């Protein structure tokens, strides 16, 4: 239900994390969505997304944007991730001007999204989904610093053990923070994973990370 709603992190970090999504409405516009979805891809990729794609074709870390655009079908779910608010405003403005007639969804901090909607010239958000957190046997969850990474993939394809390993490897200098972040991002085929934010988190967390990890 929530590709991008339940991301964890501090406010300053989450302010640099936006996701724009589009999909067809089954029984309404799923007979002709494909070419409109392709246009959505081309508009989004003009505005410097950090990542993006669709789960079947793959993401921008390893697939050319035009290939993503060309492979859109009537049921493709498309997602593009941004770390710059102005780029999001410009992208939403252009999507509004292009008037594709397809559903567009944006995830991000509530105040930031309200500001983006206003600056993009839209009247208001139509429907909003709120995250009420994680409950139940929460002692099973990994460390908060790990959740900051893993929750950037809505399908939980970025394993917490891999994040711990990557942090240790970055601390030891075996890989650069970007190399580690890109490898995590490749696990998340939708393109939900904000690689630039992951690099910042890696640079923040690696020097402070005290536990070690088995040297597999």
């Amino acid at each position: 239900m929530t590709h991008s709603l339940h991301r964890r992190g501090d406010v300053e970090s989450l302010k640099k994390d936006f996701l724009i999504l589009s999909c067809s409405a089954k029984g309404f516009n799923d007979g002709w969505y494909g070419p409109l979805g392709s246009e959505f891809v081309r508009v989004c990729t003009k505005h410097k997304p950090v990542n993006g794609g669709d789960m079947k074709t793959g993401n921008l870390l390893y697939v050319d944007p035009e290939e993503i655009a060309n492979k859109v079908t009537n049921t493709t779910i498309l997602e593009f991730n941004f770390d710059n608010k102005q780029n999001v405003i410009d992208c939403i403005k252009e999507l509004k001007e292009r008037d594709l007639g397809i559903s567009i969804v944006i995830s991000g901090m509530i105040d930031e999204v309200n500001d983006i909607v206003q600056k993009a010239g839209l009247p208001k958000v139509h429907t909003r989904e709120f995250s009420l957190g994680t409950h139940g046997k929460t002692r099973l969850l990994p460390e908060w610093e790990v959740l900051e990474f893993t929750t950037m993939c809505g399908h939980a394809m970025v394993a917490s053990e891999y994040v711990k390993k990557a942090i240790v490897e970055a601390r030891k200098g075996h890989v650069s923070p970007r190399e580690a972040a890109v490898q995590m991002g490749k696990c998340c085929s939708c393109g939900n994973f904000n690689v630039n934010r992951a690099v910042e988190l890696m640079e923040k967390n690696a020097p402070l990370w005290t536990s070690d990890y088995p040297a597999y």
Partner: protein
Amino acid sequence: MVIDETKCIGCGKCLPFCPVQARGFGRSASGGRTFIVIDKDKCIECGVCERAGVCPVDAMHMEELPWPRTVRGILSNPLLEFKATGVPGRGTEEIKTNEITGRVKYGRVGVGIEMGRPGISARWAEVEKVCMAVAKMGIGFCEGNPITHFMADKKTGKLDPTVLNEASLSAIVEFEMDETQIPELFRILREEVNDQIDTVYTFEIAARLEANGTTTVIKAIEDGGYQMLPVSKNNLGLGRPRFQEEVSA
């Protein structure tokens, strides 16, 4: 997921990629070789290990899953399409297309209880506990959702008994209800779910916003003692044809 024990060299490169740590080292009967063994009970068939592309000897492959193990893949591997909806993923369109479908109307809310999220996984017997607890409110489970599809009784929330021992990376219990039922939902989750399940769940509520950009649902959430996290998901209302809904009172 299957490991070819005759190929695997036990290097362990695939181990950290498993979201549910369902892998360990095994040894051949003669004791001469070490290889990776998958705990089939824990494995949720997400396919992450294979897609990571780290196996140097190509010893992993996805097998065709027999029933009822099929449900593990459907709910864990986003690349698999749930045939009933024709859409990959674990849930439905929910509010992503609400301006067109009119699914969540004024005075109503969409609710998602994502069992096993983030990254813990959930046994379907645990999912059934939640379905049966919230079903007492007389809510309508969302059609097109895989959990709803596998219900034996949509009124009671009872699942098909053959799937109860299956597990998945997440399982989204999706339903709609009146906004006035929010306090009762919170009570049920606190009293009948939170301490009764052997996993976690992540919880969301969606509502139409009024012309002034707010909703009374926020007050209901706060009055119920829940705290909204700072990130939100927002349908911008740009799709067509627009669902014609009566104006808000």
